[in-house]
């Protein structure tokens, strides 16, 4: 049965190829199909695999460049850290990791005394829940502010000089409010050593709470 079928196909193919023009078309078509099959199942997968690998390598190169850059930055930062250890320590002193009210007290009393200001009181005011209203600006959560109220008596020039010092100080003091009152002239007459003005000053200082982590 199969032989009859095969011979029938062969016979028909022979008849078809007897015509030279048809034969040319047939060969061209078969060659084209064969080339296509070879390309699709042989050449294309091989080239695609190589291109994919090439692109993967390019991505690897990018990753290497980024990692090298990061490593260089870290090495440079390490070098900078050791070179500028004093500056970093000073910066930690200016913006400490916890409330150093003792430093602030010492610093403020030194500045007040050096400007001949008589201190009546220095008080720490609780201001945790009014931070934004007090400072007038927003800060990241680890920054905590404390408010100090200073009352004393002074000459105007001395007070301006004191304010100048704390406002130029690398430790940031933010003057929140200041009220200056003249001392009654009769009282001044009675006590010759009295300063002519009293003042009420509210100053903010800041520290960095290490326990609060920025995400």
């Amino acid at each position, binding site marked *: 049965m199969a032989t009859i079928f095969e011979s029938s196909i*062969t016979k028909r193919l*022979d008849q078809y*190829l007897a015509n030279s023009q048809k034969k040319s078309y047939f060969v061209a078509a*078969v*060659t084209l199909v*064969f*080339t296509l099959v*070879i390309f699709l199942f*042989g*050449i294309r997968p*091989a*080239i695609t*695999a*190589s291109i994919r*690998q*090439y692109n*993967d*390598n390019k991505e*690897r*190169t990018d*990753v*290497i460049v980024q*990692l*090298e850059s990061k*490593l260089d930055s*870290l*090495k440079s*930062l*390490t070098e900078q*850290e050791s070179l500028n250890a004093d500056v970093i320590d000073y*910066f930690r002193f*200016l*913006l400490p990791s916890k409330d150093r009210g003792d430093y602030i007290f010492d610093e403020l009393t030194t500045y007040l005394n050096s400007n001949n200001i008589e201190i009546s009181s220095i008080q720490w005011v609780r201001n945790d829940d009014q931070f934004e209203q007090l*400072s*007038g*600006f927003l*800060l*990241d959560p*680890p*920054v905590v502010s404390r408010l100090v109220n200073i009352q004393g008596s002074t000459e105007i020039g001395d007070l*301006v000089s004191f*304010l*100048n010092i704390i*406002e130029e100080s690398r430790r*940031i003091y*933010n*003057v*929140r*409010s*200041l*009220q*200056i*009152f*003249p001392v009654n*002239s009769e009282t001044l007459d009675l006590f010759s050593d009295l300063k002519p003005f009293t003042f009420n000053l509210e100053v*903010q200082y*800041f520290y*960095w709470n*290490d326990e609060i982590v*920025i995400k």
Partner: protein
Amino acid sequence: MAEKNYIFNLLKPIEQPLTSWDRVYEWLIGRAKIIIMVTQAVIAITFFAKVALDTIAKSKDDQIEELNNQIILYTTEREPRYRLIQNKEVNYRNMWSSSRKVAPVLRELYSYIPNIGTDVVISIIGNIVSISTDDSRANLDSLETAIKSSATFSSAGASVSIEGEDIINGTGKGAFNAIIDEAVLLRGKF
């Protein structure tokens, strides 16, 4: 008319006509052979290229691993410390530029008051300054003019009241308030 001569060579073997399969065979060892050879060449070149690329990939993977190992040494301990310093520095600059300096404002205000010993109460709360004073009307007028014309202050308001002896003495009670210009009040850039 030319007579056509036919020459018969009875010794020449008569070839059997080609079957379809013979033609396919001829095609395979003819044109298809070229295609197959080209394909083999391409696949061979690609194979060597792939081997080279795989080797490069392996070496790059090793390099990435080595770099990661080096970076881990820093990232576990040092990087968080550097980031903390960086964050602190950014906030410090922000605090510096946003915090206030009242000394220049105070200096300017007292430059407008001829007799500093007079009863002048000055109050600076946030960016608002208030002054109340008992002085001669000429000095009060001068203070009002100075505050209103100063670039440091804006939205200046003034009220002067004259009562009782003030009329005879030529004095008065003045109350002034104004908003301090931010460019003067804030420290600005670090």
